[in-house]
């Protein structure tokens, strides 16, 4: 399945032999793209440019609002513009090492390879990356790397890249190659004889449930960090599309691999609806510390230098504050658990710009991070120029997702999965500035080739949404929404979501152990039963009903949470973000067991109430030697 040959030639050779669809035949093919973020927007625009007949769906009111827009820090590419020794190999190696050797060599190498084309494409679209005075592109360094290879647009890189993809998509919408369906949510996948035939959607304005058929379906629906309720994801981000595909036969890979981002604003109260990320780029110039003493009551500026613990610099002198996200997060949790947390709820650590401002001046700090510091001020009411920021880790990104082959196709024929929705490139931990890279790589430079290859075998086939599997799937969707409305209980969807999130965070969050996961596996099904009996969803199905939208998403989160726990339990080792407290080195680092767990766990749905079946994709490392990660 992975092409043979030297690592550096795999993708080129593979691409050279993928089958093509001639320009005259492309309009005869219908492609459904679900999601309009970096992966989906880029793919839909690219398919449209090639001449395919595309339908693109998003739940937001405009494709420009997909959650990719919120990515702050930047996008990696092995351009080596800094002459600091960067190369495709190094980007590949950093990424696979950052993922703690739980991803495929060939996929990660391909990602590093196409990274450069992404920057070219984005610049040509008018993405205003930061530049130096000579007019050429600027770079900065990011966690987990010793070179400066990150391209950025102040703290709004995701926004600018997404607008680039959105504008390319807008051009295709105007050209008539892409038909856009905003405010539309995919609620099921239509599968016939293990082949994807189309999707069932709900029009969020009218509540109408209907089907769309196509030759192929591309899911680009993002991640599922909202299973934790509080995360940095947008409120609407959900797992429903990929979860429904899982229930229709797509394998779900490494569901427990979720990234907890180290630099978020700590929770301030019970009814908080989301956590806000502060770009990790802040770690370039900010120094992270907590008081040495537990139960410190003095303000930050009253604590003398020798009573501060710069714990990352102390423990990891080589990488200091720029250790990978999982390492930074876990260490922050450790010091907070020791009672050295800061802020009113003692649930944060300081991120201090005082030294950087002395060294570089306030203007430079303002230029680099002005918008973040402003955002922080709005949320907390504090001024980070004069007092250190408070940060704490929060769920941010899910490396797990639907299993895909080298062509990004799932185990359902004709169902492709791209971007965060698949599991492919980040292993057990994603390095900073590589989500944007992967979304755009999949959307612009991989799916257009591999989807064409798939379609080439289906020339002349008619598609229609009037066959049996469509009406059957539609009926099932109507029954599901009907049940949620009929429960007519006493508790709100949000109150259940908060309780579920708490369980998953406590038992399957930054640190897990068998005992806790067993607990969660008892608590989650019990709470799910209550949910289906006692949730209250007002209104009707055949109308705009935001509570019903949420209710459906949370119902799927219950099932997903259970699968996450099963996955976390079966992986009896630590790796990357999956930190099982039973498996750590003497220094408290993640301890892998490569002899037993060097595989991708791909779960197969076996029916409600049945244990899912686990399939193993063994990972073989031909070109790199898996080592114990060290950032000291």
């Amino acid at each position, binding site marked *: 399945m992975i092409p043979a040959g030297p690592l550096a030639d795999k993708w080129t050779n593979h691409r050279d032999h993928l089958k093509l669809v001639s320009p005259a035949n492309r309009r005869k093919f219908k492609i459904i793209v679900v999601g309009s973020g970096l992966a989906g927007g880029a793919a839909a625009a690219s398919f449209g440019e090639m001449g395919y007949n595309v339908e693109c769906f998003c739940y937001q009111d405009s494709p420009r609002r997909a959650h990719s827009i919120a990515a702050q820090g930047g996008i990696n590419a092995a351009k080596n513009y800094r002459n600091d020794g960067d190369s495709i190999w190094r980007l590949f190696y950093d990424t696979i090492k950052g993922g703690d050797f739980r991803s495929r060599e060939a996929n990660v190498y391909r990602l590093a390879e196409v990274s450069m084309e992404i920057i070219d494409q984005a610049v040509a679209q008018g993405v205003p990356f930061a*530049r130096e005075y000579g007019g050429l592109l600027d770079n900065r360094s990011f966690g987990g790397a010793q070179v400066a290879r990150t391209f950025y647009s102040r703290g709004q890189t995701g926004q600018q890249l997404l607008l680039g993809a959105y504008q390319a998509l807008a*051009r295709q919408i105007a050209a008539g190659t892409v038909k856009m369906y905003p405010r539309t949510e995919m609620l099921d996948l239509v599968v016939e004889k293990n082949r994807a035939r189309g999707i069932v959607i709900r029009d969020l*304005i009218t509540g109408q449930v209907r089907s769309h058929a196509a030759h192929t379906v591309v899911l680009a629906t993002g991640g599922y960090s909202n299973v934790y309720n509080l995360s940095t994801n947008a409120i609407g981000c959900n797992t429903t599309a990929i979860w429904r595909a899982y229930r229709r036969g797509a394998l779900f890979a490494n569901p427990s691999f979720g990234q907890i981002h180290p630099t978020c604003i700590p929770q301030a109260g019970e009814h908080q609806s989301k956590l806000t990320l502060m770009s990790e780029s802040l770690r370039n110039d900010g120094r992270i510390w907590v008081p040495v003493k537990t139960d410190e009551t003095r303000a930050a500026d009253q604590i003398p230098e020798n009573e501060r613990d710069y714990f990352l610099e102390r423990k990891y002198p080589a990488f200091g504050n720029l250790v990978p996200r999982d390492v930074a997060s876990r260490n922050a949790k450790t010091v907070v658990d020791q009672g050295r947390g800061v802020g009113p709820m003692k649930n944060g650590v300081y991120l201090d710009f005082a030294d950087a401002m002395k060294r570089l001046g306030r203007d430079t700090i303002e230029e680099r991070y002005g918008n973040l510091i402003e955002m922080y001020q709005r949320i907390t009411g504090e001024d980070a120029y004069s007092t250190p920021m408070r940060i704490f880790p929060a769920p941010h990104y899910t490396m797990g997702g639907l299993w895909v082959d080298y062509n990004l196709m799932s185990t359902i024929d004709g169902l492709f999965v791209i971007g965060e929705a698949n599991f492919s490139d980040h292993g057990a931990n994603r390095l900073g500035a590589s989500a944007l890279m992967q979304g755009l790589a999949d959307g612009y430079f991989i799916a257009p080739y591999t989807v064409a290859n798939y379609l080439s075998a289906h020339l002349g086939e008619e598609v229609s949404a009037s066959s049996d599997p469509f009406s059957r799937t539609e009926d099932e969707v109507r029954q599901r929404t009907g049940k949620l409305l009929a429960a007519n209980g006493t508790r709100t969807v949000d109150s259940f979501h908060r309780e579920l999130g708490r369980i998953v965070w406590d038992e399957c969050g930054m640190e897990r152990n068998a005992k806790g996961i067993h607990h969660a596996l008892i608590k989650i099904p019990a709470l799910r039963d209550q949910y289906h009996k006692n949730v209250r969803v007002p209104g009707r199905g055949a109308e705009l009903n935001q509570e019903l939208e949420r209710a459906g998403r949370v119902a799927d989160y219950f099932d997903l949470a259970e699968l996450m726990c099963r996955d976390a339990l079966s992986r009896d080792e630590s790796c990357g973000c999956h930190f099982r407290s039973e498996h750590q080195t003497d220094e408290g680092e993640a301890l892998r067991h490569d002899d037993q767990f060097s595989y991708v766990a791909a779960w197969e749905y076996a029916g409600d109430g049945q244990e899912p079946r686990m399939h193993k994709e063994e990972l073989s490392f031909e070109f790199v030697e898996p080592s114990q990660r060290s950032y000291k």
Partner: protein
Amino acid sequence: MRLHLQIWRQENPSASGNLVKYTLDDVSEDSSFLEMLDLLNEQLVGKGEVPVVFDHDCREGICGSCGVMINGLAHGPSARTATCQLHMRTFKDGDTIQIEPWRSAAFPVIRDLMVDRSSMDRIVQAGGFISVRTGSAPEANLIPVPKGDSDEAFDAAACIGCGACVAQCPNGAAQLFTAAKVGHLNILPQGRPERYERAAGMVAQMEAESFGSCSNYRECEAVCPKGISVDWIARMNRDFLVARLKGIQGKTA
């Protein structure tokens, strides 16, 4: 704190709406404006009433989904702040807050506080892009862009497409939104080849929608959560005028 809310309730686009009063207790000063609405909705659902519909998503001021008129001001009283970033510490215990949807002919109300902003997407479809196919881009550093131009392009590109500019404008004009996109692309060398077609097309589309015309009230700039300057409107007008003089007709979406 205790708040007295007056919220616009409207069942569908053709129904006539009205302001409904609610009193909400125990609102935390640290909560955001939308979390305050969440709290109200949870209470409404608890009482078996229909919750208030409003658009929102990222809740960190970047997706542009949210936006309501708060006491007559788009996104409320704080400068350069989207509704989701507005925190309740801006208000006082006992305050009365009037909450309405964006008011503009080009943004029909869908329900309660939710409006249809697809007119803005159509403006972008009429030229708010650079025509470059995937795969056809030259090496990124081939064309140097002066840092000043690049920074200015970014200032315009920071627009989040929320529609506050239109909502606050007494004429319901979309000049600031349109000009920000025209300006972002026209200032960059990559955008130059389509400079005049872009200005002509986007302005033509803007006029084809139900937006009003600009008479320099500058209310748009005052409420823009990204602080986008009205100077961009002057630049767009210049490009539009040149397009006219050159006889370039824009293509509408």
